[in-house]
């Protein structure tokens, strides 16, 4: 596979962890106001009550109320999207699957847009006790329906038909996007603008409440995803073969789709649609050290977090003091990488394997 083959999994995790830590500090420091590493350490010491060294209270507030929640949210969302991409690729046994392709993102977006526009309407009275969880809840339902639709179309006769999956994905995405567009059209101006902005993804609304909600879904999802690593490995041999190895494939597929929807929809309902992260992060990991799903999931969580922090950093600095939606950055970087992967696929198709 590559020179990374010689490196132990644990070493790679440690390296990724250190890079992540570096990116965290960088992201927390860089922005309209520059915070040095020393300052950040002071803020944390001050908050923890160690010493009251002269910290700039405005900078401290900026750090704790804006920078830190945003950076932590990047970590959580990047991990959620990448782990979901890795899981879905293994479930469909196809390297081009990602949450955006199979309708999960668009369905979640529709579910959340319903709440943005119809928010307090009587339709939602019966479930309004959910409060802050109302939006992620509806996003979950939307994402689940869309994913199940695409999956049920593409997986007939024990075999996933990839061209049907892509076409069904296009159709379901079109329906969901059309409905979201309709809602944006019907909505009054501020709501409509927030839908449009949020269709491109943005982490600018980050606060600790959002971080908490996404943390719960991401950690739950990641924990469950790790439990499916072994059966997903077995599934790579084929469905009957996974069954011979003791995997209840029907039940596992439904569970994996549920976990995937949890990861993607809650993140999407909070930060909007962020494309391509779920596609390229697992790819790089596969190129490095193969496709053991346990490695893919741990690695995706770490590398996905790194990628999203960097992407968000680019959004904040590239047209500062204004800010670009993160979906634009991930699309501009992700799509060319995707095309590069396709040329690899075409070249290695004659050799029999996607990764050659």
């Amino acid at each position, binding site marked *: 596979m590559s020179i990374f083959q010689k490196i132990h999994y644990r070493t790679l995790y440690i390296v990724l962890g250190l890079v992540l830590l570096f990116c965290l500090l960088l992201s927390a420091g860089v922005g309209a106001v520059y915070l040095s590493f020393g300052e950040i350490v002071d803020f944390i010491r001050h908050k923890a009550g160690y010493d009251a060294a002269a910290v700039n209270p405005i900078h401290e507030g900026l750090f704790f109320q804006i920078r830190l929640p945003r950076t932590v949210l990047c970590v959580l969302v990047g991990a959620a999207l990448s782990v979901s991409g890795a899981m879905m690729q293994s479930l469909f046994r196809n390297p081009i699957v990602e949450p955006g392709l199979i309708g999960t993102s668009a369905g979640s977006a529709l579910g959340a847009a319903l709440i943005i526009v119809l928010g307090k309407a009587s339709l939602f009275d019966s479930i309004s006790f959910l409060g802050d969880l109302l939006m992620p809840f509806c996003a979950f339902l939307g994402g689940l329906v869309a994913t199940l639709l695409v999956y049920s179309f593409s997986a007939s006769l024990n075999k996933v038909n990839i061209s049907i999956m892509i076409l069904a994905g296009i159709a379901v995405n079109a329906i969901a996007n059309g409905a979201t567009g309709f809602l944006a059209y019907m909505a009054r101006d501020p709501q409509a603008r927030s839908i449009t902005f949020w269709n491109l993804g943005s982490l600018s609304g980050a606060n600790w409440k959002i971080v908490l909600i996404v943390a719960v879904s991401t950690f739950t999802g990641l924990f469950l995803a790790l439990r499916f690593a072994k059966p997903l490995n077995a599934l790579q041999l084929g469905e009957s073969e996974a069954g011979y190895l003791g995997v209840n494939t029907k039940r596992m597929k439904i569970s994996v789709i549920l976990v995937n929807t949890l990861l993607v929809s809650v993140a999407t309902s909070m930060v909007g649609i962020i494309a391509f992260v779920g596609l390229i992060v697992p790819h790089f990991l596969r190129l490095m050290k193969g496709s*053991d799903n346990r490695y893919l999931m741990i690695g995706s969580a770490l590398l996905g977090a790194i990628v999203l922090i960097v992407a968000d950093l680019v959004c904040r600095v590239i047209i500062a003091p204004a800010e670009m939606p993160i979906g634009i950055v991930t699309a501009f970087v992700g799509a060319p990488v995707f095309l590069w992967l396709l040329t690899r696929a075409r070249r290695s198709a004659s050799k029999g394997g996607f990764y050659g």
Partner: protein
Amino acid sequence: MVRGEGISFRVGKQVLLRPTDVGFAKGKFHVIMGANGAGKSTLLKLLSGDQEPSAGNVFLAEKNLSSYSKTELAVKRAVLSQHYHLAFPITVNEVVLMGRYPFYGINPSANDIAICRKAMAMMEVEKFSERDYTTLSGGEAQKVQMSRVLSQIWNEEGSDNKLLFLDEPVSHLDVKYQYQLMRIAKAFCGQQTTVIAVLHDINLAIAFADRILFMKEGEIRHVLDDVALVTPAIIDEIFGVSSAIIHDERHARPIVVF
């Protein structure tokens, strides 16, 4: 060991297996033969629990197959299929380790790893244990899969009776490895393991089988408990080719020439 009572299988209106009663004695090497589309793979799928019969019941160790959980079955029986296509790169080691998945939770025990090593040594695939499975040739890949299957039904002290299904296991192998694989399957068979194999090569079947079942048009036409009793008439009926049977003193068993 395994027994089908009135089992049949149909997809829509098409009957793939007519109602059949069939039994497979413990510790024997059973071979199923027949032309393409005779229902061999269907019978194997029903006996291995991959598919439920449309009617009738399969019994494994006198217990209905449908009352076993997937994991209970996985520690008793292994299946080597005809084709494996892996979409993603994964090392040979990891593929073989999958054979031990039914036996461990999160991390494999030292024993699991030792069994995989022994199975790989037996199939002579240790030398590419670190290689990417997707880069292997068809024959190499088949030997790796056989290692995986063997590690799944590896006989340990005090372990139960095991059942090994082979669905055209040698289709990608050269002659030397065809015989090697069959010898290894036969060696397993002598212990607590029952082997049920679908083969296309009648001479390979005669050389290793304790019993041959001939299928045609979704039913079992002939069962030979003594493989030496094979006749040109049976071969003509099943495969539609004329043949001669040669009894040669250098070989304990007869040879079929077409």
